[in-house]
């Protein structure tokens, strides 16, 4: 009696399950139908959390993919024209030595809380960011004072010359928010509150999981038909999951797929695969303060031993290009006349002999941030090739903190020999690479080749000054710096990544912008069968 009761319980339970599964199928079908009464939803399957901090002055991470749809900046960089375009600022001009910038602010722009945009609001926003001094606030370092000239005119007075137009288009720390909220603390923003001028407003945020945005009807650019009413940005950690979502048409856009998933999707006629340039590149840093990497010839040997082609073709599946120097294409300072090391073991051997470095049991430590498939595979291929030269590569995949901690060890002997790292700019200027990665540092930060070269420092400083006033001259200097780096083999630029976006066919209007890593400006997109 009793046992049959339990048996029947199990049966009933499984029955309910099947029933539910059955129902699920139906609702799934309904989802694809897209009735008119339903709002149009754009679903962005993102590889990690849609934000870490919702405070626009603070966020220095992936959160910009959310924030750029809520807030706007004074200017926006266009990578195709390589020009800074107006956004909240209508026009701007700088004085001769680039130390004073005057911005005209757009009129009739409303914040989500109803306040109107004016010079005062811009000043308060940027002042807030500078005062909080969190995240990427350093980009405003040159600013001495912001002056409101009139309702819609603003002046930046600088300590030294700096390209404020570029800085104002930065991906981070350049958002303009309503004057009503500038004295709120981060906590307030993180509760899901905001007051930007952007096309979308927060409907609901769930920390670590998803963001739901709904359109701001009074957006200053106005709305057209077929634009999306709602935007969902959701964390989907696994590449395969994102691929499955886009294949099924459940998600409209995604990125950061594994190379093999991208390859497979290229065959799929239901999706668009968009390969766009990104400003993200991978650089190998040699520890120039530690033997035997303090030897220039040895470094050259190492540079020739890296299988660039194999990595670009097979690890990145051609979703990257071998770098020319440090600066990626699409950004001024990129120069394809710069020397490219090619994989050539004979040459490597030659330089190795020339270096006179004794190889007995030599083992080099290579570090990079754990979880990065591409670094891992590149490292393994590098390892295989270095072994052919008689050099053992000790691959150490570690947390970024541990990688960084090790690279900052007091004793150069305790540091790694080689380090792989991604770099991308906070605002569209080559200075981001050169100042951070090449210029000598008092305390080690990102110059992880530990270059201390006064000549280079001089050139970088000079170029930085000129970039506000004479960009051509600056560019020339920057190319010169890169040339020197390659010649001395301080660093090993490996490849410039492409960003690969995958969208459903009906997701139109999307344009990738390397200046804003991972950001989809949903206002530009629309739905079309």
């Amino acid at each position: 009696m009793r046992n049959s009761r339990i048996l029947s319980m199990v049966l009933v339970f499984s029955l309910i399950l099947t029933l539910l599964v059955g129902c699920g199928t139906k609702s799934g079908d309904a989802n694809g139908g897209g009735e008119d009464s339903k709002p149009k939803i754009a679903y962005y399957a993102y590889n990690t959390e849609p934000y870490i901090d919702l405070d626009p002055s603070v966020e220095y991470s992936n959160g910009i993919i959310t924030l750029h749809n809520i807030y706007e900046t004074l200017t926006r960089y266009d990578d195709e024209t390589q020009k800074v375009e107006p956004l909240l600022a209508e026009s701007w001009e700088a004085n001769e030595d680039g130390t004073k910038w005057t911005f005209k602010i757009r009129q009739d722009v409303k914040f989500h809380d109803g306040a109107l945009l004016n010079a005062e609001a811009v000043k308060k926003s940027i002042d807030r960011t500078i005062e909080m001094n969190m995240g990427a606030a350093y980009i405003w370092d040159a600013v001495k004072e912001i002056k409101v000239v009139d309702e819609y005119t603003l002046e930046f007075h600088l300590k030294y010359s700096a390209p404020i137009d570029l800085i104002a288009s930065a991906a981070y720390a350049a958002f303009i928010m309503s004057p009503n909220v500038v004295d709120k603390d981060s906590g307030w923003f993180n509760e899901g509150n905001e007051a930007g001028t952007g096309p979308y407003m927060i409907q609901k945020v769930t920390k670590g999981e998803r963001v739901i945005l709904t359109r701001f009807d009074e957006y200053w650019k106005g709305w057209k038909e077929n634009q999306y009413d709602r935007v969902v940005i959701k964390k989907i950690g696994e590449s395969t999951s994102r691929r499955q979502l886009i294949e099924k048409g459940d998600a409209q856009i995604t990125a950061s797929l594994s190379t093999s998933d991208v390859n497979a999707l290229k065959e799929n006629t239901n999706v668009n695969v968009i390969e766009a340039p990104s400003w993200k590149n991978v650089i190998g840093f040699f520890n120039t303060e530690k033997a035997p990497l303090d030897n220039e010839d040895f470094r050259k040997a190492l540079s020739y031993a890296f299988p660039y082609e194999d990595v670009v073709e097979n690890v990145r599946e051609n979703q990257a290009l071998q770098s020319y120097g440090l600066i990626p294409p699409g950004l001024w300072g990129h120069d394809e006349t710069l020397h490219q090391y090619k994989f050539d073991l004979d040459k490597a051997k030659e330089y190795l002999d020339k270096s006179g470095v004794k190889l007995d049991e030599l083992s080099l430590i290579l570090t990079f941030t754990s979880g990065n498939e591409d670094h891992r595979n590149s490292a393994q291929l590098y390892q295989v090739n270095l072994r052919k030269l008689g050099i053992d590569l000790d691959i150490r995949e570690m947390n970024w903190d541990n990688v960084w901690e090790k690279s900052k060890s007091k004793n150069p002997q305790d540091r790694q020999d080689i380090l792989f790292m991604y770099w991308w700019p906070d605002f569209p200027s080559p200075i981001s690479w050169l100042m951070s990665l090449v210029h000598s540092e008092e305390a080690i930060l990102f110059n992880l080749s530990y270059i201390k070269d006064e000549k280079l420092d001089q050139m970088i400083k000079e170029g930085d000054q000129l970039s506000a006033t004479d960009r051509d001259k600056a560019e020339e200097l920057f190319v010169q710096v890169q040339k020197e780096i390659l010649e001395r083999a301080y660093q090993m630029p490996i490849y410039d990544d492409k960003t690969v976006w995958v969208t459903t066919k009906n997701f139109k209007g999307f344009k990738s912008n390397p200046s804003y890593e991972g950001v989809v400006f949903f206002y530009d997109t629309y739905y079309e069968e």
Partner: protein
Amino acid sequence: MLSKLVSIETLKPKLKEMRFLLYLLQKNKLTKLALYVAVGLFLVALLAPFIVPYASHIRDEANPSNKLLPPSKEFFFGTDELGRDVFSRVLYGTRISLNTAVLSVGLALLIGVPLGAIAGTIGGWIDEVIMRITDIFLSFPPLLLAIAIVSVMGPSLQNTMLAIALSWWPWYTRLVRGQAISLKERKFIQAAEAIGTSSYKIIFGHIVPNTISPVIVQASMDMGGVILTIASLSFLGLGAKAPTPEWGLMISTSRNYFLNAWWYSVFPGLAIFVTVLVFNLLGDGFREILDPKTRKN
């Protein structure tokens, strides 16, 4: 002469015991099968460098142009993202997993058994202190403790082993302590005490040898769990590091190729499954064979 006598005469009872065990094993077909497979696995582990078809694919070679080839005569289990033979790597993985598991369990035993024997035999405040410490370690979810340890010490197989041993020893301490307490009531312990045998000798001469069989059962059952934990930690990126052909790491890597190259995930997964299953079956069978309670029938 004497030594010969010793060896032959000592063997006899052991042989009888062995015969009895073999008989029980004979009856328990699943366990027998598991035993064969386990022996096979150990052999594979031992001989891996010599029997794998592409020994150089373990760490010395990569052929990206051959990447992600489906299973074929040339590559039984296909190839991975760097064109290495998955079959060779999976076979070699046996060596990694068994080696790590045996060492972890061994380390855990090394910590747990003496502590348990001491706690159970001596009792009093020593027992109290030891047991509270085991309680503390037991109240960490095992994986989480391992995560904590590895995230401090940095991921590597050695640290994984250490972490697993640290989260596993309390179980042995508890087991051995319980055994020791019941053994303590046995008269031969009292006899030894009456003789004046030192506590050290009582613990390690009398108590520990008599806890062996339950400990063996537990340890063989744990082997499966440990292998699974190692794989899980590697999967989370907290265990083995590339290019080590560790199964969990292979699955973790294969995730990105999962939809295109099923073989890359399937075979390491099956390897884990089969190995863990075999050890679980073995542990289960051993328990049934060695447990006097089930022996009764």
